[in-house]
């Protein structure tokens, strides 16, 4: 397998580790009133705090 093939294959394999569920904005879509899981949100914020480069 050449380099290009290795890259495609490895990227395909690693992509499975990324959780992405992008929701695109639609102004005509009914507004959601989904209950937010505070504990989950707080845990995620703790992980993110200080770990990313902020453009302040």
């Amino acid at each position: 397998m050449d380099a290009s093939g290795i890259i495609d294959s490895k990227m395909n394999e690693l992509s499975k580790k990324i959780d992405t569920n992008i929701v695109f904005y639609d102004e005509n879509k009914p507004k959601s009133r989904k209950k937010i899981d505070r504990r989950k949100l707080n845990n995620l914020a703790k992980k993110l705090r200080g770990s990313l480069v902020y453009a302040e």
Partner: protein
Amino acid sequence: MQSKRKVLCREGLLGELSGATLLFDSTAFIDAFRYPVFMEFLAEIAESGCSLVTIPSVIYEFKRGAKNFDQVNSFNNFIEELNIGTINHVENMSQKKDNQIFTMLYNFEAFNGRKEKGPSYTDSLLCLILYMYRHVDIRLLTTNYRDVPLSLFDRTDILAFDTGREVRTTAIYKLSMKKLAKKLQTMQP
């Protein structure tokens, strides 16, 4: 007696936002990650039925520092849990003729208020979105006050909260159709 909610805002704001769309700047994410009180406020807004949205460049700004799968996924999951939608094709839409005219006007007004460099790339796109989606109730949440000229936008609300060490403020802006119409009338073809 101390109020349970620590973010101070105008009475009736949450009710108003329940039918609106709130556009997130990078600064809103920074405050949400750092201050649980602000995150709680955003969660309340989201639960009220308000649509939370942002643009790819805001998301990219945060993810560019992620060094492992855990950090990337934490941010993706954070966006998903808060139900934040993404407005796509912003750059493509910015090339529509009327959007170019708005951007030109915005640049002029935004540069007017500052002596050094102009507004950031991301902030100018966020302001353009307020114009592009002007027919729905869309508002911008940001602390980059200088990049949202009051000659085109109304600062409808100022939110304040106590972080324990300081009092932080953030503002909500809306495009003023009256101000924009007035500015356009002065432009010569």
